[in-house]
């Protein structure tokens, strides 16, 4: 570390100490009513030690052990990115390095969990989880609403069962209630809500059973459609006269005059109708036989739907088999399992049953009651998959490898690796009252989390090393703007313009679905072009004008100091001796200090190390 750096940092260090004295101590648990009510859970310290023991036991059975623990420098970058989505500043790196406190890692974890960025980071993560599979593109318009809502849930540490319940039962304007995201993202469609609720909250991909019994698992079509029967009364509709436009999630009321109701009436009363109207007793109703009433007005339409032999008359048989217009099915307030052989058939009416436990509910429930019921069944302490789906996701995001892969394909039909570990985590997470911060802290305190990266070879033993992966696009965007010293401009929440904001554009280019295995996430040519060859980035890393680099060029006259500073800025570490040598030689060869340094900053920013978790 350069002398210059230490002096500056020490100065700042003193400042922070004074600031710390002036700030009133914050109680750790806020008094929020929804915050987790802890039961008899063990502490996250105890949990992490239990995990260490269990993982080591299983590793040693195959003659393996954990990798080396990571250095402070790597730990700091890893934990800050993972918990808050932000890059440590050079000053933070320096402080952390010189801080002699043996418990500094634990304290840093506490600080990061208490920072607002923690909630923001995970809110964006959950948005990516939901939006990557959304069938409703317009869901984009509630991005900000969802992220603000979810950030609050996370920061106030609402329990995961509470958050899940809120999302499953949400109603109201999608611009006002962030909890409506999962429902809105499926346009309120009962089958699609069932698929996503199962995938996100249970980690079970039951949607395959939408059209056929699952090929490899035990799920049948009935299971899927019984789950969908909890949601047929969800309705998503535009909010009238609202600018900017919005949508609301409300209950679909069964309508007395819906076209389907009328068709059902006609089917049921076919004989009566014939008796009433068939004046000439030819067993058919013709137009002339009807003198008045709604049937007269609708007669042409009736013919179109029912007159199969095109004789412009309707027999009882035709009335009983009257087709229903397909677009009329949106009025249905029950879920029907489609008849795959005959799309004109409404299908079989299904009743709500929870497929994992076979629990049934009373039939005549309204929308809120149905959704509250399925939320209760899903989040029940008896249902281990609710806890495990969440644990598997968070563990995968932090350690780089899940107990189950892909991360959202778990359940009773799958085998976990290290089953003892996830079982223990699941028991205690349930006991903790689904305390999210407790879980995150338990994981990041483990030696499993705090060990070095594996080599990436296929024969790497699971959990004997952490695995690298790409940062999510918002994390990268924040890191790049931080490195290059760009103030993040106020972001508009106008959905129409959102994609045109610099962050929106960046997300279009770098966004990926966090449920996809990291191994399958590859960089793309347009991404590389943006980083290496875009006028935007290139201008910002120029040594001319009011850029951060041009300030640094003036601030650090010594090339060694300057190179160390650049490494600290971009990679949060000091350069190795070899890297220092390569960089110094490069400046010399270029014969132009400014140009050489620009190229070094370019190389660091474009390096895979900058783009990857480590």
């Amino acid at each position, binding site marked *: 570390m350069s002398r210059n750096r230490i002096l500056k940092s020490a100065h700042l260090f003193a400042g922070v100490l004074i600031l710390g004295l002036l700030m009133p101590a914050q109680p750790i648990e806020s008094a929020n009513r929804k915050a987790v009510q802890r039961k008899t859970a063990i502490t996250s310290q105890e949990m992490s030690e239990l995990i260490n023991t269990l993982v080591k036991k299983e590793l040693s059975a195959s003659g393996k052990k954990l990798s080396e623990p990571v250095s402070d420098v790597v730990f700091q970058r890893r934990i800050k990115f993972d918990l808050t989505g932000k890059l440590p500043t050079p000053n933070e790196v320096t402080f952390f390095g010189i801080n002699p406190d043996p418990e500094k890692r634990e304290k840093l974890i506490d600080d990061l969990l208490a920072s607002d960025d923690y909630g923001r980071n995970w809110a964006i993560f959950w948005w990516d989880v939901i939006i990557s599979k959304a069938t409703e593109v317009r869901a984009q318009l509630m991005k900000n609403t969802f992220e603000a809502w979810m950030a609050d849930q996370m920061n106030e540490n609402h329990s995961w069962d509470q958050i899940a319940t809120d999302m499953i039962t949400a109603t109201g304007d999608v611009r006002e209630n962030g909890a409506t995201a999962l429902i809105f993202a499926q346009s309120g469609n009962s*089958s699609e809500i069932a698929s996503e609720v199962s995938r996100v909250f249970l980690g079970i991909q039951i949607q395959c059973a939408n059209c056929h019994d699952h090929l490899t698992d035990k799920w049948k079509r009935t299971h899927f459609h019984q789950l969908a029967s909890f949601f047929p009364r969800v309705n998503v509709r535009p909010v009238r006269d609202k600018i900017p436009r919005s949508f609301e999630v409300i209950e679909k009321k069964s309508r007395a005059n819906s076209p389907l109701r009328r068709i059902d009436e006609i089917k049921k009363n076919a004989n009566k109708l014939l008796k009433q109207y068939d004046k000439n007793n030819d067993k058919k109703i013709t137009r002339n036989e009807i003198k008045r009433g709604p049937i007269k007005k609708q007669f042409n339409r009736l013919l179109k739907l029912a007159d199969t032999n095109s004789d412009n008359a309707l027999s009882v048989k035709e009335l009983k088999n009257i087709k229903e217009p397909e677009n009329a099915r949106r009025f249905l307030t029950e879920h029907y399992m489609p008849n795959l052989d005959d799309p004109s058939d409404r299908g079989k009416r299904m009743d709500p049953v929870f497929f994992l436990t076979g629990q049934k509910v009373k039939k005549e429930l309204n929308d809120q009651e149905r959704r509250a019921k399925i939320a209760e069944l899903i989040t029940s302490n008896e249902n281990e998959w609710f806890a495990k789906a969440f644990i598997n996701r968070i563990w995968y995001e932090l350690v780089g490898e899940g107990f189950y892969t892909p991360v959202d394909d778990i359940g009773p039909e799958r085998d976990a690796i290290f089953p003892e570990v996830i079982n223990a985590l699941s028991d205690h997470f349930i006991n903790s009252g689904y305390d999210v911060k407790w879980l995150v802290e338990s994981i990041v305190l483990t030696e499993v989390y705090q060990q070095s990266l594996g080599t990436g070879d296929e024969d790497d033993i699971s959990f004997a090393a952490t695995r690298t992966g790409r940062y999510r696009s918002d994390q990268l965007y924040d890191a790049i703007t931080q490195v290059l010293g760009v103030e993040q401009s106020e972001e508009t929440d106008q959905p129409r313009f959102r994609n045109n904001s610099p962050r929106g554009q960046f997300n279009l280019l770098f966004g990926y679905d966090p449920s996809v295995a990291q191994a399958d996430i590859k960089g793309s040519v347009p991404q590389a072009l943006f980083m290496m060859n875009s006028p935007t980035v290139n201008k910002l890393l120029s040594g001319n004008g009011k850029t951060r680099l041009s300030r640094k060029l003036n601030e650090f006259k010594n090339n060694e100091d300057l190179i160390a500073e650049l490494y600290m800025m971009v990679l949060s570490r000091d350069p190795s001796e070899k890297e220092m040598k390569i960089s110094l030689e490069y400046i010399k060869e270029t014969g132009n200090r400014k140009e050489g340094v620009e*190229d070094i900053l370019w190389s660091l920013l474009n390096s895979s190390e900058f783009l990857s978790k480590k």
Partner: protein
Amino acid sequence: MSFYHHQNIQIKSGRVTRRNFLKYVSAGSILAGSLGIRDLVSLQAEELRKNKKAMILLWMRGGPSQFETFDPKPGTATAGETEAISTSVPGIQIAQGWNQTAKVMDDIAIIRSMTNKEGNHQRATYQLHTGHVPLGALKYPTLGSSLAKELADPLNDLPACVSVGRTRIGAGFLGVEFDPFIVQNPGSLPSNVSNIVTGKRLNRRLGLMNKLEKEFAYQGGRDIVEDHKQLYKKASKMVLSPHVKAFDIASEPESLKKAYGDSKFGKGCLMARRLIEAGVSFVEVELANWDHHNDIFNRSSTIINEADPAMATLITDLKQRGMLDDTLIVWMGEFGRTPKLTGDSGRGHYPKVFNAAIAGGGIKGGQVIGSSTDDGSAVKDRPVKVNDLFCSICHSLKVDPRTENDSPLGRPLPIVDEGEMVKELFS
């Protein structure tokens, strides 16, 4: 190791599927480990030359009215103000305004009996791009990506699939590798492709980066570093490649530019021809603003002035260069429009009957396939579904529509489910 990676990249970038690769290996040279990537390429070089097939999708975003395009109903209440004009093929009439296109009708087949059920822009756009209705979490690849995977030459400097416009349906489960390369301003170099530093300096930077990457490679990032290096090679190849000029129409003769039209769509079509010439497999060019809920006669006349010269010139241009037989052109939108006019002279969404126009790619031009009823409210004969159209596209490009790709859960999914190709197109 480097061989492994190289091979990996080649396999992933299409052309050679993993299974095919194994087939090649086992068929010819089981000389344990001695087969390099060059061998592999020469193994299939012949095949590469044979298949120069490519496709241009002219995407009419918003749902073009069949009555104002290629299925006019002159003299009926349905027609409104729209007249019909004759074409170079006796007996085939199309809507007024399509004067240039009328002259090349010999090369065009019109399908007037397209029929579908999706009347929502978003869902129909997805279906007409992927061949599948949106279904829960599964993200199907856009046809361009599926075709690029089958057709593209991995050694080409340019991306295999290029898209002009705002249709952001990507490669889905095929992964970003096959994502369409999006062009914002057709006719000029795309963003981030033109040199911002000299080629020499870019190479120097890449050299420095590769040297500095060794530390991370050593710390466990070896595979990532290697993939990254290959990716940057590909991207910088594009920046430094002379072929990237294919995006830029500046060097084309003024008369030709004028013939295509000085519009975004005209430039896009000219660029599409240049890209296909340079080895790109699939180009989509979008023409937006077909969603005419009111004032349809004035509005369609404006947009036809943009569409007509570009489409007609594209066909002629490809033909003159001897490229038409290998290049399939498909003109279509997400659905048609209602026969009945609204009070303010508009038409609503109508998926039940719509039309599509097809040229090149070995299809038989100068014909009309299927028809709609006199009032245009229903298909009269020979209904053609979206899957049938997609099977026909595959047939023209010599791609098996049942070619399977694995979903993220490992389920093999064909490019097109069911459906049959429209035989008349090829007879």
